[in-house]
């Protein structure tokens, strides 16, 4: 099945994932991404009726750890944000 350029709606999806594409990127992607989606269509041939999906390679369930406080230097993390005041990140006015 082929996907006409309009069907993939590159610009609309880009805006949903907070990307603004240049006109050149938009043109390039509408051709390239449609071809890649066509490649994904090969999955239609896979004999998967009645097969359960595997979300994760290992069967690990309900991993818990002790409910104990482990100290972490929060200041170090906050400082990565640049301007900090009283343990809050200082951001420009919205």
């Amino acid at each position: 099945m082929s996907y006409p350029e309009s069907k993939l709606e590159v610009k609309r999806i880009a805006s949903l994932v907070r990307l603004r594409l240049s006109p050149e990127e938009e043109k390039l992607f509408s051709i390239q991404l449609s071809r890649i989606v066509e490649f994904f269509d090969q999955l239609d041939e896979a004999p998967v009726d009645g097969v359960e999906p595997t979300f994760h390679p290992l069967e690990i369930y309900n991993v818990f750890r002790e409910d104990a406080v482990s100290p972490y230097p929060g200041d170090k993390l906050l400082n990565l944000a640049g301007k900090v005041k009283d343990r809050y990140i200082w951001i420009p006015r919205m």
Partner: protein
Amino acid sequence: MKETYTLKLIREIESGSLPLDEYLARKREAIEKLEPLLNSFITVLKGFEESRSEKLGLLRGLTVAVKDNICVEGVETTCGSLILKGYKPSYDATVVERIKNCSGVITGKANMDEFAMGSTTEWSAFGPTRNPWDPSRVPGGSSGGSAAAVASGESDLALGSDTGGSIRCPASFCGVVGLKPTYGLVSRYGLIAYANSLEQIGPIARDVYGCALLLTAIAGYDPRDSTSVKKPYIDYRTALIDGLEGFRIGVIRELLGEGVDRRIASSIKDSIYKLESLGACVEEVSIPSISFALPAYYVIAMAEASSNLARYDGVRYGMKIPVKDHDWGKYYEDVRSRGFGLEVKRRIILGAYVLSAGYYDRYYIKALKVRTLIRKEFMDAFKIFDALIGPSMPILPFKIGEKIEDPLELYMCDVDTVPVNLAGLPAISIPCGLAEELPIGLQIIGSYFHEDSILRIAYNLEAALDLKLNPRLSEVCI
């Protein structure tokens, strides 16, 4: 035990015939001379020579290059992306902590495709890494900087990460040994996520001994990674035993069919004869669903990437730019559009597409069902075989720029490596021959947590082949 490069080095350091200071100074010199030609590193650590510990642990002061998507406290960690430029993690990844505790000396942060999305290291925002065998060619990717650093002798050991072949591909292209561990064997705490359900950190070294050594240092349960698995401690060097009598090895038919360079196929066949001469029983095996592995892999990897990379908003860390018009929606778009490169944008958009209403079942869930089939077929094969083999890459290292314009053609290069990540199995790539003075890699795949088996096979094959691997750009040639 055969004295390969890493073991010889360790013995020289232990005996004092190679003083550690002299060794580290030599490594600094190699990096200074080779970096302008190779660009293996994004950051070289200032004064790494002084970071050696007084008491020598398992790694004996050997140098380790760390892929730039693995956090080292206080050292810029960019993931090969402008969006993380200037980001200095406030903590060490568990693997880094373990390397430091084993007295490994971290030399720097190795170059990589942006967010590990690529097979050539050309997608780094900090310029491509070059292949030490031929600097006009790619080193493979995405851990291309790690593999090039080891092949050239800039570093003796390196950490890579493997989401769809990102350790095995560059190991193959650079003529070194690279191991992708079983999912859950090595902690991912401090590995900046691309596709969590597929990726693992693993060792790259000049020889199988080096890989076993570094794996011993980094493997093991970590409560900070809820997907890491509790297993008893293993010194993987003890797996390096002579002889392969009684080993049953399957050659994966689908990996040696159409599209494989005939020189690579011929080299793999020569290795099969060697394995038989070492006592192994080698037979053909079929994993039919491998034919769907590539589209399934890319659907899953892109879906996970689009979700993981949503965190880059230019507020809490990384790239920051002035906010205009008090519009935060616009700000996020500005930061992400400037900070991410082309391939990352492609994958985020496609990932969002395959997860969107109407396409979720058609692509994402179907890909996860293919994953079930592949996993089952591998598990069936491991009821008969101790290990499976095939080429690591279907083609030889190609020229820089040759495939970069066509993303789909680049994705096709991963055809031999992605099945292992879908199943979560361990696999090692070792050099098995040369064609036109370029290395060829053989891939050995093991059952879950059977790293010891694939290391033993690799170790015996390495000794039997006894290849003379001399890349054009290396510390001995400068």
